[in-house]
Every structure is written in C-alpha cells, then in structure tokens.
C-alpha cells in the first residue's frame, strides 16, 4: 500500500512537472509569437511590398542610397570588434582566475562583477557620459592629462566606437558569470589528471579548460554579435547628451528608427532591420558550423 502511494505520488509529481513545463513553454511561445515572430513576419511583408502592392526591392534601394547607410555599418563593425574581443578576454580571464578560489571568496567577487550589470544599458551610458565629461568628471585630471578638455574631444568620431565598447564591456559581466558556470561544469577529475600530468595552471587553462568551454564561448559570441548589430540606446543617449553633435544616426538601427519615425517610411525601416537580422543569422550560422555547437557530445 505504502509502495503504491509512493508510486502514485511520483506519477502525480511527474504530471505536475509536465504541466508546469507546458505552462512555461506555452507562455513563452505566446510571447515569442506575439512579440517576436509576428512583428518579424510583418517586417518582411512591409520590406518587400510595393507602394501599390506586389513584390519590390525598392525599399532596399532606398535605404542603400541613404548617405549614412554605409557608415552606420562601418561604425557597428568597429564597435563589434572593439566590444567582443575585450569582453571575451575579460570574462574568460576573470572566470579562470575566480574558479579555483574558495566558494565564499568566489561568490563575493561574482557579486562585485555583477554590479555594473545591474545598471541597464541606458543608466550605464548616463554614468559614463558623466565620467567622460571633463567639466564634471571625478577623473577630470586623467582626462585633461590625456588631452581631453571637453566631451566633444572625448567622443570624437574615432573614439566613439571604443567608448561605446567600453560601456558595453563594463555592463557585460554576465559573461563572467556564464564562463564561471561553464568552468565549474568541468569535472574535477579532468583538471586533476592534467595536474598529475605536470601541467601548470596556465597550461591547464589554455589546453584543457578553454577547449572544454568552447561551446559556451561560441554561444556568448552569437549573443553578443546579435546585441551589437542592435546597438541603439547607447548612441541615442549620447546624441541626446551632446545636442545631436555626436551619435545621431550612428548605428543602422538608429537609421531605421529615423526612417520609421521621422520620415514615416516604415517599409524602408523594415528593409534595414531585415539586413541586420540577416547579418546576425549569418554570423550565428558561421559560428555554429565552425564550433559544431549543436553536435551532441558522446
């Protein structure tokens, strides 16, 4: 009797679990369809629909002819490199340093790294604009020593991608947490074996740990490339802070916003957004192929 009750309880538990699973994924699916797939589908429809109906590529021609089109992509390309490389190096590096520490120490540092992340991108920009404005910055002597007397000098066209990348790196501490989790999933036996074979910690990190978290790195790169192509809030806020002097229509998404809300040309905005989608998807496919991200390990 007792055994039967346990069995029944177990099935009941499994059923409840399954229900919860359906509930969560159901909600997710509803949101995905409503706020992801349907708008994306509508964007495709808008981008290829002619003014009088029928298929057209005019909207793509229209955006490509815009005088800002090429440079917005150049900006984002520079930004992506300036953001991606340091953010990977920093997140993997910090995670490697942190992982062998005692749990209590590690969790304190994880909390510290996470703090900047707690600021949303927008608040992060405000903090950085404040930091980089020589007149009010607490690090004014540093800025003036570097030859920067005002915000326009700090945010010169050459500096802007780097400044935006610094802000992004600063708020991308989730990378550290992710890498830390990945490193923690490496079985102790493996690192132990490496140690017994005479590998020092540097060699263990490079030759043992890194290859084992390759897929996590790939996953992070895919997410970060997608985030970079969608750069919007940060330059938009900087444009606000400089009276439009710096950062106006700086990224493709800002240009798309201008097409939609300034020119009321939603079709061209959709055409430009689709190009960003294609770039993100291509980058993802390339990374997945190169790292065999989805291949099951045996």
């Amino acid at each position, binding site marked *: 009797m007792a055994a039967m009750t346990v069995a029944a309880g177990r099935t009941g538990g499994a059923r409840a679990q399954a229900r919860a699973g359906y509930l969560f994924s159901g909600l997710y699916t509803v949101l995905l369809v409503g706020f992801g797939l349907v708008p994306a589908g509508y964007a495709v429809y808008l981008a290829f629909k002619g003014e009088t109906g029928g298929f057209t590529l*005019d909207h793509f021609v229209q955006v490509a002819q815009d005088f800002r089109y090429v440079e917005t992509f150049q900006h984002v390309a520079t930004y992506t490199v300036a953001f991606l490389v340091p953010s990977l190096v920093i997140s993997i590096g910090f995670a490697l340093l942190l992982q062998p520490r005692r749990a209590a120490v590690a969790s304190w540092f994880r909390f510290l790294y996470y703090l900047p992340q707690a600021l949303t991108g927008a608040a992060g920009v405000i903090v950085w604009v404040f930091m980089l404005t020589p007149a009010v910055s607490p690090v004014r002597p540093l800025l003036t020593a570097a030859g920067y007397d005002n915000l326009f000098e700090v945010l010169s066209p050459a500096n802007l991608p780097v400044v935006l990348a610094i802000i992004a790196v600063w708020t991308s501490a989730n990378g550290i947490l992710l890498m830390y989790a990945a490193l923690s999933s490496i079985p102790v036996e493996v690192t132990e074996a490496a140690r017994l074979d005479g590998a020092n910690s540097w060699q263990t990190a490079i030759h043992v740990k890194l290859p084992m978290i390759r897929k996590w790195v790939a996953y992070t790169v895919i997410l970060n490339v997608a985030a970079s192509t969608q750069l919007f809030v940060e330059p938009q806020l900087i444009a606000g802070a400089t009276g*439009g002097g710096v950062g106006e229509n700086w990224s493709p998404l*800002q240009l798309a916003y201008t097409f939609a809300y*300034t*020119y009321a*040309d*939603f079709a061209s905005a959709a055409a430009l957004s689709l190009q960003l989608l294609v770039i993100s998807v291509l980058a993802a496919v390339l990374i997945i192929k190169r790292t065999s991200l989805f291949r099951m390990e045996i």
Partner: protein
Amino acid sequence: MTTILTNVRAERLGARRRRTAAAAAAGVALLAAGCGSSGTSETPEQDDGPATLVVWTDTVRKAGFESYQEAHPEVRLDIQEVGNPDDMAAKLQLANRAGEGWPDIMWAGIPELAAALSAEPYDFAADLSDHIPSDVIDNFAPGSMEPCTDGDRIICLRNDIAPSVLWYDQDLMAEFGYEIPTTWQEFEQLGLQIAQEHPGYSVGSAAGPGDLVYFWPSRCPVTQIVDDHTIRTDLGAPTCTRVAEMLDRLIAAGSMSPLNATDPEFVREYGKPGKLVMAYGPIWYGLNVFKDLYGAPEGRFAVAAPLQWEEDGQVWNGNVGGGTYIVSRHSSHLEAAADLVEWMATGPYQEQAETVTFPAYQPHQAGWIQRNTRLFSAAGGDVAAVLDEAVATIWPDYGLVRIPGIGYGTTVAPALGTGRTILETLPEWQQTITQEAQAAGWDVEQGE
C-alpha cells in the same frame, strides 16, 4: 537624438519618392498603408456630449491645463506628459498607423513644429480659423503667428515668442566703465577690449543655438524656404561669413566661449562667478539661464535693444524658440479643444505668475513685463520699448524649417569643441544641411 521632419507646406515625401524608383504613386504614399483615414481635411463627426479632451503637454504647461480643468469642470481633461517633441512626433506616427490614439490637443515646444505636424507624413493639425475669432488672431505680436499660418488655415496658436536682446551685467558694465554697444562691430570691439583688459570675463557663448542667436540677425541664408519642397542654403554668403569671422576672432581672443551658455563648464567658469559681462540671446535667458542656472541676483542683468550690422543700415533680429498649441484634426470635440487652446494662448493662463515665457498675445505682454521687472530692467528704463523693437525687427525670411540633424549643434558645436574655427566649418555645415534635407525629401539649392 532624432529630430522631427518638417516642411512648412507638405509633400516632401512626394519629392523624395520622385527621386527613387518608387516614383509612381507619390504623395498618397505611406500613410495610406496603415491609416484608414488619410486624406487631408475631412473633419470627424463631432460629438455633442460632454467633452473629454486628451492633452499632450510638457511639465511647464501642465500647470496651465490643470488650472483650466479647475475653472471648467464641465470638460474632462486627460492630461498626459509626453517628453520632448521627438517623442510626441514618434507617438503621432504610431497613432497614424494605428488609426487611433491621437491627443485632442498637443503642446509643441518649438515654433516650427506645427507646420511639420500639419503636413505629410503627420497630417495632424486641425484648421482653427473657424473656431478662433479673427480679432483674437490680429492681437498676436507681428509675425508671431507666421509659423501657425498655412495659407488661409490657422494650424496652431502661439504661446510665446523669444526675440533676442543684448543682455548685460549692469554692475560689471558700470565697474569697467563700458558703453553698451549698439552695433555688432561695437560688440566685437568691446569683446576684444574685455579680453585685453579683463581676461577671464566673457561676452557670451558661440555654441548652443548659435545659428538662431547670431546667424539669424545677420540674415544668413541657412535654410531659406524657396517653395513647398525646396530650401536654399548658402553659408558662403557674406551675411554668414561675417558672423563666423566675428565669433572666431572673439573665441581666439578668449572672451567668447566655444561652449554653450548652459554647458556645465561655462556655468562654472562664467555663470556662477558672475563673469559674464554681456551676452546676445533670447528673452528667456533672464529667468531660465541667468537666474535659475547661474543664480544671478534679481536685477543684476538688463536688456538692451538688438544689435545692428553697421553696413546693413537697419536692425535685424532673430528669435530663439516659442511654443504653440495644436488641435488634432481627428478630435471629435473641435470646439471644446479650440476653446481650451484659446484659453491657454490668449486667456487667463497668460496672466498667471507661473507663466514664465513672454506672451505672443500682445494684450498680456504688459502684464508679463510688469511681473518681470524685478528680474531685469532695460537700458534707458523701458523694457517694453526694447522688447517691441526686438520683436518688430525679427527678420521674417530666415526660414524656420525643422529637418533632422541640420542644426548648428550637430556640426558647428562639435567642431568648436575640438578647437576648429566656425569659418572653416561652414562648408561642412552646408553639406550636412544639404544631405539631411535631401534625405528628408527636400530639393536643395546651394550657393547663390
């Protein structure tokens, strides 16, 4: 910061389409795609019941709408604070696509916005000419209703005007023993003299709205409107280069700041310590900048008549801002909405102490001057005379047209920040104006 597409009289989208492969169906274009109610002037069915009016406003004007609500309980106001003009315009685009969600009344913080919102692609403003008596319209300051007039249509009511004047610190001028300049040449001379005799003191700032403050009074063709879809820009004209050269010389001498008057650095260097000897700028400097930002004691600054370029033989002046009230053509309570904007622009709101701006509606100007004399006085003692001249001399052909990104702020101000001269930036500024205007659908005539 995205800005608002404008054109005084419509069709720039049409112009833009003509230049692209999509030519054929111009004009009708985009709005029709999402908005069932395109077409320009049909009036929606009017609702006889008690009116509920949706108001989009900024924080300052909100108090006015609230006091209207108190005085008129029969109308229900749904007052919504909508950030800056760009946010309002973006929200209008969404409403246009959705075919609903427009406010009945909208505050537009810059004078050129009403024309933009009246034209495609916004097509928002109602014609108020049947609702506002013409004798009321006639009482607005000369030229102040120009941005609200589109042919026979009245597309908004002007709240305030902001003519420039010569501001000066009475104490410093007396202490240094200087005469108040009356021409730009004297202004420059005095600026150079101050740089020599009193280094560390300032005669103003060159960034900020430098186009409106300095280039407008010189009659520089920055964005003159030629016709419905053409603007003319010629920054190589002598009326532009003389301004650039004067400012460059003053900046080089050190008495003119390359920043703008509200920049934290400028405030710290000159504003707060009381080292601003004089500054050319709009009438709202007195409260918003000198008192509120610099903490200048009331009565320290005074206004003098606008400056004249000696070779012009007469005074021309410029204007820096001034808001308007726009009624939606989608409103089903046009009469009630018109009544409310009339109350705000010409009625009791303009007599309230919290109405900080200089009224465009003339019958209320004397009261405003009365309320502000503790704040500033005038050379010769007659503030009204100075303001009358400042308004009457505004050059009417400047061509206030709001095209995204063409501002002085987006090209000249950053260049100034990196140590370049205004003169060498003029060609760049002209190129920016041309490119941005063309992207927004305008034809652009450059040069002569």
